[in-house]
């Protein structure tokens, strides 16, 4: 599955889709493939304030339990409640229906630390 060109990425294999002040966040196709079948997603509470680098969601697969780290600082303004009953959406549609959290970001300058799709493609070549 190709990485969408208009998304940003992190080295922890998260994607960020910026829509104005609100950023939608999920894990990449590479990440879901490495994790294997996702069986549970622990979502944060609405309105939680998170700092960049802080674990703010947990994805549990048949193989491992992994933290999802906030790629940016901000406030949780949306959570994908569909994942509570259908965690497999993370595997089936990682870049779209399997999104995890929406953050209203506080510091737009943090965006420049993220990777573009081209940079992430190159990063995946190395790992």
């Amino acid at each position: 599955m190709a990485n969408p060109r208009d998304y940003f990425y992190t080295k922890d294999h998260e994607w960020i889709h910026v829509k104005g002040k609100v950023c939608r966040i999920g894990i990449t196709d590479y990440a879901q493939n490495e994790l294997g079948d996702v069986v549970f997603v622990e979502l944060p509470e609405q309105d939680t304030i998170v700092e960049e680098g802080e674990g703010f969601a947990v994805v549990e697969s048949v193989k491992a339990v992994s933290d999802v780290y906030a790629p940016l600082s901000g406030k949780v303004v949306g959570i994908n409640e569909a994942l509570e009953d259908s965690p497999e959406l993370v595997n089936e549609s990682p870049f779209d229906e399997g999104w995890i959290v929406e953050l209203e970001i506080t510091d737009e300058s943090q965006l420049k630390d993220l990777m573009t799709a081209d940079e992430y493609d190159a990063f995946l070549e190395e790992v």
Partner: protein
Amino acid sequence: MQTKKPVPLIFELSSPGRRGYRYPELDVPETPMEELLPKEHLRREVPKLPEVSEIEVVRHYTGLSRLNHGVDVGFYPLGSCTMKYNPKVNEDIARLPGFSLLHPYQPEETVQGALKLMYKLQSYLTEIAGLSATTLQPAAGAHGELTGLMLMRAYHRERGEDTQRKEMLVPDSAHGTNPASAMMVNYKVREVPSDARGGVDVEALRGMVGPQTAGIMLTNPNTLGLFDENICEVAKIIHDAGGLLYYDGANANAIMGYVRPGDMGFDIVHFNLHKTFSTPHGGGGPGSGPIAVSQRLQDYLPGPLVSKRDGEYVWEYPTKSIGRVRSFFGNFGVLVRAYAYIRSHGPQGLMDVSDTAVLHANYLMRKLQDDFDLPYDRHCMHEFVLSGKRQKNQGVRTLDIAKRLLDYGVHSPTVYFPLIVEEALMVEPTETETLATLDAFVEAMKQIAIEAAEEPETVRQAPYNTPVRRLDDALAARKPVLRWTPRS
């Protein structure tokens, strides 16, 4: 969740006033409870215990036990767990009143027999490990790991190197407890890659060691069921760098009596008495994880150990002991069972155990290698790892295969581990099964491989013949309901 027939809880069987016993009429003067107990400890309401007759209790729990799968019911090839048969003679010995009715605070002179048993078990395990001394304190394998790493830290501390030696090396095929234990002792974990044959990548290891190396945690055979022939070279690299070697004894059933971890260069070894030495586990237990250590570490061992002084067995602390790692030997009955196992087998018998365990695993691996992918095609030790990659492409995951096996009356192998094998199925048959049982397993696995190719939906919806169908085990672990609450 699809349940065939809901099983009531014992509380739901309760009926007011029903009893399993009757006290005889009181024939002494009655003393009011208020005169016997302090007021603040007196209960004001009747406890909400189930009111049931004795036969209801017996039928309820016998019924529950029949819903379980255990090694007394059927084949249980759960990799790395050594689900061997638990001989009933062990149970007989552990129930002798001199063992079963002890109190932990009894004076030493009144428990000489029990202390002698512990003393001898210490020395047997020391001999099997090829090391210098053994403590029976750790409560299970991961506790043994934690204790072993605390000994490493004490050793480096005495040399003034504990602040500099902060790194614990762990192979990428390691048991998950290894890096977890290292983190608990505040070591930084560094992952050592495997080579193409499934062993430690020696050249990579050479580049990773240095004055920051505290030690390495290894199991040999490793979690792929493969014996690492480079182990002496690995030991030399670590020792030359000033580090120590920890042996995870989870796989000791493959080598018992043939290879001593001490001879491979290890400084610390834990044994899982509940795996290798046949004491009950998997819903039974409790576990037990004694550790044996080399001469340079024996003075740091946690106490108390059992020593022999002037013909008497006594509790004793080593000179630089790290202290206790648990309060009492509450699992003493497990030590008795392991002792009985060692004595009833004898040295040759223990070697026969390893022989047969390795033979059984190789037999199954060769019988199944055409139906499933075999990522490391070498003679295996006591277990082997298949990959369900081919079946995944047919739309059937390893988890589905695991569930389908239940319909054939077999407990699943360990799945999705080790992490370096895609869709892993880790099979450990143990030495206690008959050829007929092994062949029935082969038949079941072959049948499932055919089903995966021809009617994958059958496998995806399994199991069908179990008391409950597929449970949401992730949700059960995340949001467990542990307590029954009365309606009123």
